């Protein structure tokens, strides 16, 4: 009897330790540093002020940009889901010739994004882009700046954001009980009915998670509107980033950022309500694996093939052009006139054969790997805890984990520096500012909300009864996790890891404030090179860096997914 009591005590102690550990982590790294900053916004010189709100309300430009951000987010929630669903169905659900090849093209957005992606599309559709030049030959009266504004931004971002679908839906599809499809078929259901009534509803939790991420990314759109939006379609995030770097205007950045953050959390809240209504539990005994569906109607089949390959081209041409242009000089890149003489290896040689050039790569790879791994592990633990039941504390934790979405990364970095530049009890008297750990902490923090949402989506795919079975055999939570849960969610978790890794690899905004002088990360080096005052080939260097980053990302992806294939 005694040892049972002891065991109980141990369990309780562990539980207590876990809870207090979580509370401490949340408070020390998410709430305390950030709340300070938010307070400062509204309490200047000890007095409550809404000057920031007034200043921003007065600005037509800011209001318009804010509105555009919401419009964009709303539009993308629809368009990205449509396109994303299409490419996933083409590559993993329907029998399409060459679907594996197509999928590689569709997955290209996993390895590049942001400015580079937008430039890629401009190489195709911009005023001196390939397509534009072709069209101009046919319609000389055409406006070369036709690819601009709301439509263009939506187009580019729609293609850019489908990576969520590639990651989540493809693997979630594999978790469908194939016999339900067979059942529907035997009742005479058409492919379309099966898709809409049987398959997609099962994926609804995944759709909710993806949609939140789309809305969030749409609200936070930066590069595409800046480069393609033109005068009439600017969004709010560039302004936030810009103002967060200015001492005098930081309060406005905070306010704007809070608006976006609250909108995001509101979306989350709404979707949680809807989600709970659509919540379902698997009832299949042992799932049988999905078999690719043939399309019976030849016309539809041809149409599907044609659109699949057209979309494939839209995906890959920008990336090809980026690779091509990375071998040309800055003049060619800026003007789009490729001549034989444009080509040069100098961009690569100057970057790759610099004596110290490998160190930033190493630094960033180490930081990104560590951070992606740690945030993944931390969030997995927390996400499992959050899903293990319902309680007030859990909701608090859930929403507290969202705080990094409330502030731009510059301000998060500032909050961290200011908080941990003195010895604080909260950190057991350690000073973080100026240490190499600081950047790691920062990386982990900014990746928390994203990782949590993605991980939650992944956990939907685990059948609860399997955990019960393992428990009944005496398996401890961690063992269950390792042996039962993780194998099911592994593809998702690895994908999240890679996405985080890739994003952190080239991070600039946070890195520049937090990095240790001796360990300069890649993003900072890239930006420095790109902002060279005297080297007019700086533009080319950006492309070269991007190509190298794509290469690293591709390698990390294929490492991760290559292993994957053998397991499943």
């Amino acid at each position, binding site marked *: 009897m005694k040892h049972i009591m002891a065991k109980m005590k141990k369990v309780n102690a562990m539980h207590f330790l876990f809870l207090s550990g979580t509370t401490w982590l949340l408070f020390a790294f998410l709430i305390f540093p950030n709340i300070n900053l938010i307070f400062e916004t509204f309490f200047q010189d000890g007095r409550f002020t809404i000057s920031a709100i007034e200043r921003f309300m007065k600005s037509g430009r800011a209001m318009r940009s804010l509105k555009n951000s919401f419009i964009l987010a709303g539009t993308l929630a629809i368009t990205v889901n449509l396109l994303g669903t299409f490419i996933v169905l083409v590559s993993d659900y329907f029998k399409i010739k060459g679907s594996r090849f197509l999928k590689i093209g569709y997955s290209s957005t996993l390895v590049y994004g942001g400015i580079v992606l937008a430039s890629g599309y401009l190489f195709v559709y911009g005023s001196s882009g390939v397509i534009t030049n072709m069209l101009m030959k046919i319609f000389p009266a055409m406006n070369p700046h036709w690819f601009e504004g709301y439509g263009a931004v939506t187009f580019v971002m729609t293609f850019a954001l489908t990576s969520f679908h590639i990651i989540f839906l493809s693997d979630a599809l594999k978790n469908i*009980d194939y*016999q*339900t499809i*067979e*059942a*529907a*078929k*035997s*009742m*005479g*259901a*058409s492919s379309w*009915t099966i898709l809409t*009534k*049987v398959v997609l*509803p*099962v994926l*609804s939790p995944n759709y909710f998670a993806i949609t939140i991420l789309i809305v969030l990314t749409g609200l936070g759109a930066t590069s595409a509107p800046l480069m393609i939006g033109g005068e009439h379609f600017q969004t709010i995030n560039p302004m936030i980033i810009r103002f967060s770097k200015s001492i005098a205007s930081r309060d406005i950045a905070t306010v704007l950022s809070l608006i976006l953050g609250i909108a995001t959390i509101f979306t989350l809240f709404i979707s949680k309500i809807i989600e709970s209504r*659509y919540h*379902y*539990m*698997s*009832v*299949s*005994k*042992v799932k049988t694996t999905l078999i690719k569906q043939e399309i*019976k109607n030849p016309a539809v089949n041809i149409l599907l093939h044609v659109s699949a390959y057209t979309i494939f081209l839209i995906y890959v041409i920008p990336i090809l052009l980026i690779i091509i242009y990375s071998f040309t000089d800055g003049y060619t890149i800026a003007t789009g006139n490729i001549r034989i003489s444009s080509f040069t290896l100098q961009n690569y040689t100057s970057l790759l054969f610099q004596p110290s050039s490998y160190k930033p790569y190493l630094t960033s790879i180490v930081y990104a790997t560590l951070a992606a791994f740690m945030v993944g592990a931390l969030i997995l633990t927390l996400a499992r805890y959050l899903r293990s039941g319902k309680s007030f504390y859990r909701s608090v934790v859930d929403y507290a984990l969202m705080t990094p979405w409330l502030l731009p990364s510059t301000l998060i970095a500032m909050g961290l520096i200011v908080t941990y530049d003195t010895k604080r009890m909260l950190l057991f008297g350690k000073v973080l500012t100026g240490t190499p750990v600081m950047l790691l902490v920062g990386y982990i923090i900014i990746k928390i909300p994203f990782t949590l949402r993605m991980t939650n989506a992944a956990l939907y795919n685990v059948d609860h009864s399997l955990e019960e079975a393992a428990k009944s055999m005496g398996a401890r939570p961690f063992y269950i996790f390792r042996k039962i849960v993780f194998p099911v969610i592994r593809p998702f978790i690895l994908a999240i890891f890679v996405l985080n890794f890739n994003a952190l690899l080239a991070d600039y905004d946070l890195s520049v404030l937090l990095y240790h002088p001796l360990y300069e990360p890649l993003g900072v080096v890239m930006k420095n090179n790109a902002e060279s005052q005297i080297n007019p080939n700086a533009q080319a260097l950006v492309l070269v860096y991007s190509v190298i980053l794509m290469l690293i990302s591709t390698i990390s992806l294929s490492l991760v997914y290559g292993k994957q294939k053998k397991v499943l």
Partner: protein
Amino acid sequence: MITFDNVEIRYGDFVAIQNLNLIINEGEFFTLLGPSGCGKTTTLRSLVGFIKPSQGTILIEGVRVNDKPVEEREIGIVFQSYALFPTMNVFDNIAFGLQLQKKSKTLIEQMVWEIAEKVDLNNEQLNKRVSELSGGQQQRVAIARALVMKPKILALDEPLSNLDANLRGQLRMELKRLQREFGITTIYVTHDQEEALTISDRIAVFNKGYLEQVGTPKEIYNESKTEFVTNFIGDINLLPGNLKKELEIDIKLQAYIRLEKIYLEPPHPSPERYHKLGVVLVEKEYYGNLSKYTYQYQGDLMRSYVIDNERNDCAIGDHVDIYIDKNAILTF
């Protein structure tokens, strides 16, 4: 009419069904019977169109259907693992096929209620999610979902395995009624020999991918063609060597007798047909309506069925006489 002509079915390298030749008549209640893993489900799935035979032809009403898509075969199916739609409630699961046929809403409701009543699901349960049902309730939803469509051919894969005897009896009657009333050809998979014998017009017994015997229940039971079938259908005694000698049966043959062909009470009509044997009662197994008695005969065990035991007032350890029906001995 359904014809399997020289059909072979494979999962990768594994041959699940070999050289299957089988004809199922229109309107027949046809049962596939066999031990677990023998290929019953596989046969059913090939008929419905979920797996393609690697060899041979499947014909429905004389038309080759090997390449005919599932949705055009119009076969209702109850899956062994139910395959219910997890995102729909019970009502919608059952109504799914009807909605596909664009039936009116009121008609659908009426049809669903009707069938739900037949499978003993009430209104409250119709509104639950399928994950909120008990195992047997889920199975009944699967049955209802297939029956409500009144298909020409009905394929049922162990549809009653999770239901109690009363409900099973009730649903068996319902299945028979449907089959008779609408001339539905029913292909029924079951692991339950008794059920197969009661309900079927004809039975096909499978073993390890091979078809062992096809026939009416009585043929299968009383005229088992192979040793496997003999053993598989109902309980049976393997005659011990001594007894074989006594009965002048070739010692090299395997000789069997069914439990119910051994009698405790002396037979009246034709005593010469019965062989009397002095044995010791060693065990009584209780089955409710009947008991299984085990006797010892010169070191070997023999068993028989006895209906209720109050009238047979012998106790364990008693020396009793049993009577073996010589005509009922099967040899292989």
